[in-house]
């Protein structure tokens, strides 16, 4: 072999890993085999740094049907299976924002429909660098139009998401996409190969040289030579995806296949070896039969290509022709490219000649697992007296509302078709999304949340807060959480500090989920979000699915009437650290994030769910981030009426107006409201102005329209001049 050092470096394998490969094979690997191990043992595919920690997460729950380990997780709702998962496409979106985001959507859709579910919703969590810089604007514009350019044609509504901005994302933007699908409970499909002797059918786009080593690219830092890796950009074809989706659901409907897996990272290699490994069989692949897009492709390239819009299925005995006929009807190529075998070998042939021969399990399940050294971060405990000084609250309110962190996201979501499939009962704009399930009384509520600002200050606390926030968003709609999926975005895990952030985050998530008794059903880890040594803040993205008992009576802004009371539920503490107020008004980063008392949080959420289901309030909103005043103003924009507030507080005013204490919600209701948590009536819905008296003195008096204009225009004025 030519210069081994160089070869290993190119394949992102360590010397020890190479030795391990040699001892598995009992010989030196050939180049093709080295390629196989390189992708399958990459961080992206093998979770080698994260595996031992992820195992700690709770994966049991009363609604759980399928936990982590399959293409997507599954919970039960309204007698149906809800299949969902979130995945990152961070690196590709930095290299080519439009295609990176588009193919991210394509990939997560396939993860859901491979399980036999029809995708019914997409959500996305996006993090970019500050928009003052044109390069960041270009990335954001590309990502948003890429999501639209893929999701819209496929006909899956993008019903929600979140977007925020921090300096560190300038070179490592985050694009986390979540997909939710619905299947019949008894018709879920898994990545299984059945038994020996079955045909492997390749369906979808022909294979090109796309994204060879995409998985390894996602497993390394960006450095000087990122430039040449750019050739790996993949172009998405949403039209083909739509056809692939319909054809795949049809072969499932007709019960023609045993198992199926999409060809995502590490393409043909991972899909075939993973299915075989789960069923304890071997696999033979005839690479010369794989449909190709480019001339002169080698076995190495065919095995590692990450071309989009491809599926690998294991046919039921004798059903090959019927399967092909279904795909043919939809205009999709389908060919037999291999078969399952007795034994445990993964073998690939090229015109009859064997080009790779390794144990299946060595690729799929025996990748090394590392217990990387870690050093847990010290939480930021900063707290300053100066923060609490009284200021011009009107000015603070205006600045927060028109800041990129809080301004209306309409410019984004109106580029997404969020109504196709006619299930979207609660449109984007006013909190979590609600979808109806046709033919049922029940619906599902969906939300995705992340807060890198908290993560930077205290990763463990951030994980707890983010889980609580996601569930609170659901509770405001009367929805009980059924399960979560998550995406963990970090820097280089080989650095003990970063690994420490990761461990802390997982522990926080575990603590919160165990407390709420809600399982993780799957997720994704994205490491190496680091450029020239500078890492992103640890960012945990939580995607949650909740059950709505009756979608006809959900709280919504349209139900609020003039004269209704505005009630604050919950506990207000002294939580200003890492808040929007600090960041936007005082220009200070960091500070001790809010403290959360999980018992109180649970009480609040129970009350919200109970009151919502009883129809006791018209609308409710969660207060973080931004705090009470900005979130109230935003709620009023959706309601279309003003309010008169009268607030009494013994503490410094800023805590009440802009503090970000969790375990609180604002509720709009008529009459009196009684609850098992502290309730304070703070005002009335009224007129066209927002006025607020604090301890008897008028502090805010603004026409709602004026506030709304700046909130609405922030993104259009940046992008649509």
């Amino acid at each position, binding site marked *: 072999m030519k210069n081994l050092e160089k070869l290993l470096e190119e394949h992102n394998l360590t010397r020890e890993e190479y030795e391990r490969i040699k001892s598995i094979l009992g010989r030196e690997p050939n180049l093709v085999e080295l390629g196989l191990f390189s992708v399958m043992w990459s961080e992206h595919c093998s979770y080698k740094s994260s595996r031992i920690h992820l195992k700690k997460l709770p994966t049991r729950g009363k609604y759980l049907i399928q936990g982590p380990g399959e293409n997507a997780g599954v919970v039960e709702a309204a007698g149906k299976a809800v299949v969902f998962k979130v995945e990152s496409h961070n690196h590709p979106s930095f290299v080519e924002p439009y295609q990176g985001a588009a193919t991210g959507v394509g990939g997560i859709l396939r993860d859901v429909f491979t399980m036999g579910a029809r995708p019914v919703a997409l959500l996305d969590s996006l993090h970019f660098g500050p928009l003052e810089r044109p390069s960041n604007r270009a990335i954001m514009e590309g990502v948003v139009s890429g999501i639209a350019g893929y999701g*819209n*044609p496929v006909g899956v509504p993008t019903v929600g998401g979140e977007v925020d901005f921090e300096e560190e994302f300038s070179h490592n933007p985050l694009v986390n996409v979540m997909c939710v699908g619905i299947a019949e409970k008894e018709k879920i499909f898994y990545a299984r190969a059945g038994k020996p002797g079955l045909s492997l059918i390749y369906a979808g786009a022909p294979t090109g040289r796309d994204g060879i080593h995409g998985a390894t690219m996602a497993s390394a830092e960006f450095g000087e030579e990122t430039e040449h890796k750019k050739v790996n950009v993949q172009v998405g074809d949403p039209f083909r995806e739509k*056809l692939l989706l319909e054809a795949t659901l049809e072969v499932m409907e007709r019960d023609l296949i045993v198992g199926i897996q999409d060809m995502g990272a590490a393409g043909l290699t991972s899909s075939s070896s993973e299915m075989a490994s789960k069923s304890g069989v071997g696999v033979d692949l005839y690479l010369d039969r794989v449909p190709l897009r480019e001339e002169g492709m080698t076995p190495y390239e065919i095995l590692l290509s990450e071309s989009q819009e491809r599926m690998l299925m294991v046919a039921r005995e004798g059903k090959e022709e019927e399967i092909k006929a279904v795909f043919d009807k*939809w205009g999709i190529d389908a060919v037999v490219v291999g078969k399952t075998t007795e034994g445990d070998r993964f073998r690939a042939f090229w015109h009859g000649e064997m080009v790779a021969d390794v144990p299946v399990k060595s690729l799929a399940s025996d990748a090394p697992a590392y217990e990387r050294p870690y050093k847990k971060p010290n939480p930021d405990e900063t707290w300053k007296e100066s923060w609490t000084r009284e200021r011009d609250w009107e000015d603070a309110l205006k600045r927060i509302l028109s800041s990129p962190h809080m301004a209306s996201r309409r410019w984004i979501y*109106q*580029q997404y078709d969020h*109504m*196709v499939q006619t299930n979207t009962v609660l449109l984007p704009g006013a909190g979590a999304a609600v979808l109806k399930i046709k033919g049922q009384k029940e619906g599902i509520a969906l939300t995705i949340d992340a807060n890198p600002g908290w993560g930077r200050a205290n990763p463990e606390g951030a994980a707890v807060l983010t889980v609580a926030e996601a569930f609170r968003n659901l509770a405001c709609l009367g929805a009980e959480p059924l399960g979560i999926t998550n995406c963990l975005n970090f820097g280089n895990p080989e650095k003990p500090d970063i690994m420490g952030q990761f461990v802390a985050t997982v522990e926080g998530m575990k603590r919160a989920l165990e407390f709420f008794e809600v399982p993780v059903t799957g997720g994704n880890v994205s490491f190496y979000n680091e450029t020239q040594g500078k890492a992103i803040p640890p960012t945990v993205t939580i995607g949650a699915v909740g059950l709505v008992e009756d979608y006809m009576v959900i709280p919504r802004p349209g139900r609020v009437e003039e004269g209704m009371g505005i009630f604050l539920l919950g506990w207000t503490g002294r939580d200003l650290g890492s808040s929007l107020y600090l960041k936007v008004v005082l220009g200070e980063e960091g500070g001790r994030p809010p403290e959360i008392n999980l018992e109180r949080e649970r009480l609040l959420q129970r009350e919200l769910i109970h009151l919502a289901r009883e129809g006791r309030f018209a609308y409710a909103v969660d207060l973080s981030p931004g705090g009470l005043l900005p979130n109230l103003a935003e709620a009023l924009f959706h309601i279309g009426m003003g309010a008169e507030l009268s607030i009494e507080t013994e503490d410094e005013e800023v805590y009440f107006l802009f503090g970000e204490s969790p375990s609180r919600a604002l509720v709009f209701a008529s009459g009196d409201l009684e609850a098992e948590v502290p309730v304070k009536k703070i005002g009335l819905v009224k007129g066209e102005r927002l006025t607020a008296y604090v301890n008897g003195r008028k502090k805010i008096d603004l026409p709602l329209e004026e506030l709304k204009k700046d909130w609405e225009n922030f993104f259009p004025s940046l992008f*649509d001049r």
Partner: protein
Amino acid sequence: MGNRKVRFGVVVFPGTNCDRDTYHVIQDVAGEEVVYLWHGERDLKGSRVVVLPGGFSYGDYLRSGAIARFSPIMEAVREFAEEGGLVLGICNGFQILLEAGLLPGAMLRNRGLRFICRFEDLVVENDETPFTLLYQRGERIRMPIAHIDGNYFAEPRALAELEGRRGVVFRYLKNPNGSLNDIAGIINPRGNVMGLMPHPERASEAELGSTDGLRMFLSAARYVRES
């Protein structure tokens, strides 16, 4: 003809994505009969109203609706239209009717170049078509749009002809996309082929925010029943 159900046909092209929504509304909300019509066939299966639903036929590659116009089913639709059959094109279906020459004009990219999905207010301009019998002229209705190529264009003479014969059926109250004369929907001279960019099937159930679109399906059904 009593209360016999009217059969609608919903055409499915590769890339159509509102077929199931349209089918659902016709069957479960309007209570009529409905069948799918496959693009590769020529049989309209006895449909009395043919609907070309929204979506991205052939990915909207080349131009929106440009490739779908060559489908075998479109030959049947053309003949059906020539015999006076009712044809309704929604969004991508409208674009296909334009490309096929069954309606005049063409679609350009939206003025802002972006896809727009949101509710729009429309004015009903013509309540004498088979599709708008149940609306009132001048009535304001709300329906969602969801498109990137909805900027209607026709050359001046064609536009004058269209306006002259009251061929504009719906106009936007606030033009979202640059359409000439705020046009949102038009009908052919014979009055049996209509196309519109807004989605009536997304405005047919109260929980989705509007029921203003439902009357379009009900109106077509009534027209067929009474003719």
